[in-house]
């Protein structure tokens, strides 16, 4: 991997002469279920050439992964598959398993979303990669082992020979994903299918893995079929793009065509619902209302019709074909794509955008608003013990090490950082409302360490909480009405009032009040999260902690929930503590940002300041790792690739905790470096409402 900064510009290395390596034509997959025939994929056609990257995007359940599994012949036998999948000149559909196995791995290989499940826990990573080599080629054990180390080196695993002897669980998520890629390219495949290869990873690791994928492609000249739900990632990676909806391609074209001249309302909606790092804050996103149709009983006509603002009579009667638009290689499945083209319509023209909401409190300057939540020098550490019988303390994990911030009425403070940076610990410490190990938490003027049992309960009223995954945060055994009433009941609200409030809450989040007796699983993901938000609002809190409130939701649903949160904040004068790793979204929702790294806040300030002129090298690296949903800008972007991963919180580096990964540390003169090693940087002002903990922040442009 290229060290330090590397331009992401990439020339398509298409070699047309060779013809497509993988050709899929009219692929259809269906399953029979209790409720009827589930048509998971219909009319899927594509071809990829060597060196080309084909992206397939779509929401969960749109058939993107099923189509990939069908190509690999990995679907369960209950699936009915028709159409044609040709690899080189060989038809793959209908081959039996031994024949397919000969092609899998060598001709076509696959990178899965969850690399832990792709490795067997009882063998070393090196042995498993060597095994993959030996299955397809006659090599000695030694040669295979050497090749495995080479491959690990290629995907940027430091000290590859030694690490090859490690077991999968000893690798971090990012390393495992690299090892998985190493295994996938072990036999010089001609096609690599990558199914959500970066979904579970942090942005900086995601950028690294995408880089590795690119390196791997260059090393093997393979074609890549990349499947993801994240349209943003595609802009910088793919050459061509297929947008899928309800089991079939809705739009097909080059990245530039799809991103800059979308011709199908669903694509428009997806693009409009993406928050962008380079957009001004406060603009509502364009929401796509509703949810994808059930694949069991697809209505006749366009599957997108119930959600489409451009829907006309013919849409519900005739399903539009996937037809060329004015450019012959740009296809769209929409009756009105010509009109979209003629009018050069953008997302905001097609989808109704709610007017931006400005909280009345925003008129009051920040300093004059009351502080609703204050955290001072918060410390939390966990003992690390070893041994089953006699527990010995072998170390201390410093999860939080002096975290301070305050949250004022009517504002949103976002906590961002990679996993393991201490965001969640901070939130849990606040919500526990107990005395912290050191430091203090003050909620609406009440210090948590001095709370009596009764005042603690009273304080809980003022603090709402929304979790990441609504399907896990709603008790599956309780009807929605009881879920919403629970907090009210715990605080002794009378029954009649409870009922009234439940109806009110459902209305507030845009759900039908008649739904009280339904169970959570009867709702779609977006609706479930609305219920969770309603529950958080039940007791009229002043502060709501939002822990990644939309990251478990589908892209087109997110915008609606985000807009709802914004509206509620304005109407009810709430303050949000927003935990997130999606920086584009943070840019969109937050007023202030705190960037966390290894239990510290390294940079904090107004969102325009921090995102516009980041002072800490870590923030700058994070920001540069965020993909922009804009292929033209992606191509010319300079990316700061962070080396390595978060150091262990067990034994943080001396001085500045970021120095082992800091590009600025490398860039500055040796005498300045010494200061980073010796002295722990404190937050220093970088302008109005902007602190950064770096000794050399003013030299940041060198990094």
């Amino acid at each position, binding site marked *: 991997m290229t060290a330090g900064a590397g331009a992401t510009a990439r020339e398509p290395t298409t070699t047309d002469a060779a013809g497509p390596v993988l050709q899929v034509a009219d692929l259809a997959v269906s399953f029979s279920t209790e409720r009827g025939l589930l048509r998971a994929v219909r009319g899927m056609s594509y071809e990829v050439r060597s060196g080309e990257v084909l992206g397939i995007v779509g929401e969960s359940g749109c058939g993107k992964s099923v189509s990939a599994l069908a190509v690999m012949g990995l679907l369960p036998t209950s699936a009915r598959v028709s159409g044609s999948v040709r690899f080189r000149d060989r038809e793959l559909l209908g081959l039996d398993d031994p024949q397919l196995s000969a092609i899998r791995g060598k001709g076509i290989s696959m990178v899965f979303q969850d690399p832990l499940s792709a490795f067997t826990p009882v063998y070393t990573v090196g042995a498993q990669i060597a095994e993959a080599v030996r299955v397809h080629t006659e090599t000695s054990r030694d040669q295979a082992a050497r090749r495995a180390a080479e491959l690990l080196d290629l995907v940027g695993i430091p000290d590859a020979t030694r690490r090859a002897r490690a077991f999968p669980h000893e690798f971090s998520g990012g390393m495992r994903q690299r090892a998985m890629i190493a295994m996938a390219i072990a036999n010089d495949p001609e096609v690599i299918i990558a199914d959500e290869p970066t979904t579970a990873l942090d942005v900086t690791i995601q950028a690294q893995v995408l880089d590795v994928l690119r390196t791997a492609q260059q090393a093997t000249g393979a074609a890549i079929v990349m499947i993801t739900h994240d349209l943003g990632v595609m802009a910088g990676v793919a050459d061509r793009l297929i947008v899928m909806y309800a089991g079939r391609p809705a739009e097909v074209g080059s990245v530039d065509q799809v991103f800059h001249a979308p011709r199908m309302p669903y694509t428009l909606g997806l693009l409009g619902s993406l928050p962008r790092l380079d957009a001004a804050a406060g603009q509502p996103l364009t929401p796509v209302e509703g949810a994808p149709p059930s694949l069991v009983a697809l209505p006749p006509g366009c599957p997108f019709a119930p959600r489409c603002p451009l829907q006309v009579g013919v849409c519900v009667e005739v399903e539009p074909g996937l037809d060329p638009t004015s450019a012959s290689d740009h296809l769209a499945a929409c009756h009105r794509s010509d009109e979209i083209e003629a009018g050069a319509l953008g997302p905001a023209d097609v989808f109704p955008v709610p007017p931006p909401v400005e909280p009345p409190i925003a008129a009051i300057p920040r300093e004059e608003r009351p502080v609703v939540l204050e955290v001072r020098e918060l410390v939390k550490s966990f003992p690390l013990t070893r041994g089953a019988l006699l527990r010995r303390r072998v170390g201390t994990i410093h999860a939080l090490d002096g975290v301070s911030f305050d949250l004022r009425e009517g504002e949103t403070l976002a906590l961002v950082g990679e996993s393991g940076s201490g965001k969640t610990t901070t939130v849990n410490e606040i919500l526990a409302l107990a005395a912290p190990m050191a430091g203090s938490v003050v909620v609406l003027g009440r210090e948590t360490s001095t709370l009596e049992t009764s005042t603690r309960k009273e304080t809980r009223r003022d603090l709402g909480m929304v*979790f990441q995954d609504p399907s*896990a945060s709603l008790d599956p055994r309780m009807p929605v*009405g009881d879920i919403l009433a629970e907090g009210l009941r715990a605080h002794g609200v009378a029954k009649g009032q409870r009922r009234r409030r439940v109806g009110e809450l459902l*209305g507030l989040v845009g759900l039908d009040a008649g739904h009280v007796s339904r169970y959570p699983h009867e709702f779609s993901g977006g609706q479930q999260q609305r219920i969770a938000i309603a529950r958080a609002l039940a007791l009229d809190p002043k502060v709501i902690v939002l822990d990644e409130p939309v990251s478990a939701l589908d892209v087109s649903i997110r915008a609606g929930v985000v807009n709802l949160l914004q509206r509620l904040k304005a109407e009810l004068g709430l303050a949000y503590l927003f935990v997130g790793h999606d920086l584009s979204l943070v840019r969109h929702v937050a007023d202030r940002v705190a960037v966390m790294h290894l239990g510290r806040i390294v940079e904090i300030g107004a969102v325009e300041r921090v995102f516009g002129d980041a002072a800490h090298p870590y923030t700058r690296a994070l920001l540069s790792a965020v993909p922009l949903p804009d292929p033209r800008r992606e191509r010319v972007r300079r990316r700061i690739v962070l080396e390595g991963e978060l150091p262990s919180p067990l034994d943080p580096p001396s001085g500045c905790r970021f120095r082992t990964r800091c590009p600025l540390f490398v860039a500055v003169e040796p005498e300045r470096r010494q200061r980073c090693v010796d002295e722990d940087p404190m937050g220093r002002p970088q302008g109005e409402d902007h602190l950064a903990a770096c000794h050399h922040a003013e030299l940041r442009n060198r990094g």
Partner: protein
Amino acid sequence: MAIPTDPLLVAASEAGEDVPPGVEELEVGGRGRLVLRRFLRRRLAVVGLVVLVVLFAFAFVGPFLSPWDHTSKDFAAFLEPPSSRHWFGTTQIGQDVYAQTLRGLQKSLVIGLLTAFVSTGIAAVVGACAGYFGGWPDRVLMWVVDLLLVLPAFLVIAVLSPTFRGRSWLLFVVLLAGFSWMITARVVRGLALGLREREFVQAARFMGVPSMVIVFRHLLPNMASILIIDATLNVGGAILAETGLSYFGFGVQPPDVSLGTLIANGTRSALTFPWLFLFSGGLLVLTVLAVSFVGDGLRDALDPNAAAARAR
């Protein structure tokens, strides 16, 4: 798939004006009615329930239909096969098998159900509390579980039973239940440990819901299926335990009878004088089957995620 409602443009102010339809039934009938509806969809469960009700009715009303009771003897009929005078025949000493079987059924049903109920109840509460609270309550409770597990239950009951002789059979239920809840409690504790970390439990905690309420409202309902299966199995188990103890003279004492004592007495002559064994044995099988069908149906009704419940 749920029909999407218009999610965004609902004016918040309008919605809160009056109580919308549907909110009325909320806490009262909402959940119970749903469970009932799902239960009624399960044919076998309904059959099981009907059989169970009939058995109960039969056990308690049946004795009045016959002139004999379980203690009276007819010295004109020893070991008679079923006839119009003695519907189920008579025993070696002229007791009426019909009257005895019904009396035995009464006892066994009540003992079995009560024992299962009490034992599962103890297991649920102890296991869930141990798992939810952790720390020293967990250690103390699990210590008790281990202790009871190593005690030989049969012996303890046998040793204790002379002290209870002549007292209520309810004590017998308590003893049986007291020695049969431990394994389930451990399973429940394991489940509670997992559920404790679930976000909906945390959400309740952060809202200020008291711990015991969380245990009863969130933990136990989410283990309902395992508790119900357990209770069902326990009914059979308790009846069998009661049989064994009664056989050795430690359980239900003569002149009182239970299905257990009747089967024990009948097995020796099951082939030659089948009426001594067939009626009590048949009723036992019927009872256990019916209870387990009901258990199945209840599980599907209570568990909205069960596949069968979803397919309407």
